[in-house]
């Protein structure tokens, strides 16, 4: 199809009129040529006041939720969830809503850049071509984010063809999710790789060990729907939810019981509950035999009666479910914690049952589960960089200078790489360190697809298409690599004409797949439906049942975890539910109050009010937090729901670049983390102890809640 094909021709051809509720499709790169028009001057396909809707995929995280974007006069006005998409069924999170503030962010990279000066795309293409041609294949490396998948597939194909390093993927969310630990534990217990899926919606009692599944964990929109199902009391009994966590996250805030156990005792507590529950059920389970409930109660700070009560609920419920995740796994013994908690599910005999544990469906055309790199694998990658093994590094969709702990030394290792080329849409910290920035389109201006890794029962490939024409002089990274490959020649010259042709070649095999919710006889018809519905998915359940046979006979360790550093406080960094790793440049996300503290626009450290009082620390006092890896200064929020020996800091702020709304605001808690990993290679981010020093400074935090009435302030009972 010709590139000159305008939307008007397209509409005439297909006879699809501009209607408010119809979702327009295109069978080629047509929507690339949607033009922005002044409001006074309507494009021919649009009537005054009528909008055009496009189905695409959210790229704020890698979950792959479908979006329907309302556009008007070529501008994206509003994102809504795609009701057809089995993952999110028409719903979005706050970040999906605010993605428009990324698209129309005043601080985007507008042109290809060499240092601080603009260059042309021809020059940029030549730079990439030279980088490919003039280096040995093993000296060329790609570091990519967890989205989008089509670009990852393209670079993987390029790596296969030309023999360059296979692309490495990383994202701070998967680091804080402890995703590698979860999948490793599943592999150890079930003998099969894959990401477990927990059917919260069908359960009757959920025990969650640190899994913040209502915030950012794995697939928050899908898990939130599951949580609503758990609580649904119209057709069944209202399900109960118990969260084990040292600080009350906003997920724990929704729990019926929040159990503030001592960090590091999660495995011990899980095994103790298993032992008590096994006795109550009259089941013999050697996995739990080593546990000592009295000892676990003493060490974890949970009353023995509470443990027995939880074990009783767990043993006698028809739908018991236990979930390991987040900070509970981000410790030196994280793998043991994950295995102990997964073993509880074997006791509940819930594998492959409603309200139980499954192995997530693989996406269409996917043959095996691939997780992103763990922090330890990133450390190896950084070592290769520092040792000068890479002459050129391409970075896309990830901001490692910000997302990785500074102590891992990514920024310094960039000096060991000859040439760093970033494809970042925004001027982030990594782009600031790069020799060149060749900006990709924003996700809403892009083609692509995303494999749904977990959260939906069916195998889902969520499709993306541009909903508006590119706002700036940006270029799709695949188009740039294709053009550069042609110049570089040899094995780099792939035969695709452009990104759309590559995309079509990738989804074409789906036409012959069974059980699709639509099929088509030819690629153009197929692509039209693919774009109209926002992807392709099966109508059948693709989840698999974990092998339960041996789990209860495995040997489990309940040893306490080890902590790095000498400080008196356990340190729990957690991902801000509203900002996550890349939301800080969107002003409305900054102005969303944190669900637990209601703080906006800044970072705080949550301290127990009694501890703060004993140390003579008040709200908004700036304290210095010192770990053996680093230190930072941050104002105090006296948080009533945290252990006295624990502090917590949200991750998401502390940018030194990334635009006006993100820069020089708050701190990055990864500055306190370093090279300690668990057995699965995940960062033991919750395995650090810290000291607190007073600074005498004050920094008032903006919060939505009034401080009136909090701890008696302003109510005539100050203390």
């Amino acid at each position: 199809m010709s590139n000159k094909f305008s939307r008007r021709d397209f509409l005439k051809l297909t006879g699809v009129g501009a209607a408010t509720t119809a979702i327009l499709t295109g069978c080629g790169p047509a929507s690339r040529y949607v033009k922005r028009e002044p409001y006074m001057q309507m494009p021919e396909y649009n009537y005054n006041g009528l909008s055009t809707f496009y189905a695409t995929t959210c790229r704020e995280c890698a979950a792959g939720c479908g979006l329907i974007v309302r556009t008007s006069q070529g501008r994206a006005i509003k994102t809504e969830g795609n009701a057809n998409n089995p993952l999110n069924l028409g719903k979005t999170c706050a970040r999906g809503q605010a993605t428009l503030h990324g698209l129309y962010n005043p601080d985007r990279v507008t042109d290809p850049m060499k240092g601080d000066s603009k260059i042309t795309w021809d020059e940029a293409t030549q730079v990439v071509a030279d980088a490919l041609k003039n280096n040995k294949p093993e000296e060329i490396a790609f570091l990519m984010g967890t989205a989008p998948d089509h670009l990852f597939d393209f670079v993987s194909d390029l790596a296969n063809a030309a023999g360059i390093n296979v692309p490495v993927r990383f994202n701070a969310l998967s680091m804080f999710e402890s995703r590698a630990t979860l999948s490793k534990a599943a592999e150890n217990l079930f003998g099969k790789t894959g990401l477990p899926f927990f059917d919260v919606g069908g359960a009757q009692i959920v025990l969650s060990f640190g899994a913040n599944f209502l915030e950012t964990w794995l697939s928050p929109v899908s898990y939130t729907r599951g949580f609503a199902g758990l609580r649904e009391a119209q057709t069944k009994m209202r399900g109960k939810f118990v969260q084990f966590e040292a600080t009350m996250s906003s997920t724990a805030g929704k729990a019926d019981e929040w159990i503030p156990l001592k960090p590091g005792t999660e495995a011990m507590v899980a095994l103790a509950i298993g032992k008590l529950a096994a006795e109550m059920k009259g089941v013999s389970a050697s996995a739990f035999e080593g546990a000592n409930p009295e000892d676990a109660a003493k060490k974890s700070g949970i009353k023995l009666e509470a443990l027995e009560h939880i074990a009783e609920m767990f043993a006698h419920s028809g739908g018991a479910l236990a979930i390991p995740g987040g900070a509970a796994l981000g410790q030196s013994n994280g793998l043991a914690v994950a295995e102990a908690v997964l073993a509880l599910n074997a006791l509940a005999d819930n594998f492959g049952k409603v309200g139980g544990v499954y192995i997530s469906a693989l996406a269409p055309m996917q043959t095996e589960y691939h997780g992103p790199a763990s922090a330890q694998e990133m450390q190896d990658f950084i070592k290769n960089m520092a040792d000068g093994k890479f002459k050129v590094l391409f970075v896309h969709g990830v901001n490692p200078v910000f997302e990785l702990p500074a102590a891992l030394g990514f920024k310094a290792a960039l000096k060991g790489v000859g040439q760093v080329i970033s494809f970042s849409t925004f001027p982030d910290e990594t782009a600031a360190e790069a020799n060149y920035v060749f900006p990709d389109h924003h996700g809403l201006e892009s083609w692509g697809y995303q494999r749904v890794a977990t959260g939906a029962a069916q195998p889902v490939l969520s499709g993306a298409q541009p909903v508006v024409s590119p706002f700036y002089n940006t270029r799709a990274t695949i188009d740039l690599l294709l053009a550069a490959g042609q110049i570089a020649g040899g094995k780099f010259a792939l035969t695709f004409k452009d990104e759309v042709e590559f995309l079509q070649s990738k989804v074409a095999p789906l036409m012959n797949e069974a059980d699709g919710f639509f099929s088509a006889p030819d690629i153009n018809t197929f692509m039209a439906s693919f774009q109209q519905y926002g992807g392709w998915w099966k109508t059948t359940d693709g989840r698999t049942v974990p092998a339960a046979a041996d789990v209860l006979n495995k040997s489990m360790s309940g040893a306490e975890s080890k902590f790095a550093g000498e400080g008196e406080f356990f340190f729990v960094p957690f991902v801000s539910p509203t900002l996550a790793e890349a939301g800080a440049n969107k002003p409305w996300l900054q102005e969303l109050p944190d669900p637990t503290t209601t703080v906006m626009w800044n970072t705080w450290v949550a301290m127990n009010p009694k501890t703060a009082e004993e140390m003579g620390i008040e709200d908004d006092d700036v304290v210095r937090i010192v770990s053996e890896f680093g230190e930072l200064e941050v104002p105090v929020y006296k948080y009533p729901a945290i252990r006295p020996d624990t502090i917590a800091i949200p991750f998401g702020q502390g940018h030194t670049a990334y635009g006006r709304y993100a820069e020089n605001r708050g701190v990055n808690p990864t500055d306190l983390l370093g090279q300690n990993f668990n057995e699965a290679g995940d960062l033991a981010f919750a395995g650090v102890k810290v000291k607190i020093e007073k600074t005498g400074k004050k920094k008032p935090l903006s919060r939505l809640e009034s401080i009136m009435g909090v701890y008696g302030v302003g109510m005539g009972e100050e203390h």
Partner: protein
Amino acid sequence: MIRPEEIKMSSEETGKWGMVIDQDICTGCQACVAACAMENNVTFVGEVDSGYGRSMHWIRIERFWEGEYPEVKMTPNQPMLCQQCGHATCEPVCPAFATVHSQSEQLNLQVYNRCVGTRYCANNCPYQVRSFNWRDYERPEPLPNQFNPDVTVRRRGVMEKCTFCIQRIHKAQDKAKSEGREVVDGEFTTACAQACPASAITFGRIDNPESLVSQLGHRSHGVKHLEELGTLPNITYYKGG
């Protein structure tokens, strides 16, 4: 002076839109707040002004604390927005008739170009859901490209609040009228209800006993906030648990 017997109770009237919010499943994720801001061109105010309590949220998630560590509990998240009172306390105090009651929609309207910024209405609102534009807040180019053309952009000195997405109501009504039918329950919804991942917010006609919102509203344990003030709020809350 209106005598009490002359007050026509809005519960007797037709055309009423209402909402049911299930606090038991609200996770406090703020998706509704972001969705509302995007739909209704609500401005952000920045760190300093939001610290002074000048943020413009039309909907906010309230949570309170009960007890002390370790027996501390977060109360169920409470999305608080204009209750579209049948007998609103903000209305009679406006000297400019900027906040008036709509007879046809039974909504509490805010007419921006009448508002002179006395802020009497906000002082009189027991729910504290009105927000005032203390400044012309900067939204640098190209952010205004995102503005919803169906919603007025407000400027300094004007009061604003939740409208139950009246632009969506009108659009649905116009469409139904042009097709010669009534608006069907569930045909459209407000931005907050549409986004909510837990489906904790349900919007619809409470004068239609068949609508989902009426069905949910008739469950026994619903609460209307500050009902004792006689404001006749149109939002029912379920605490659950």
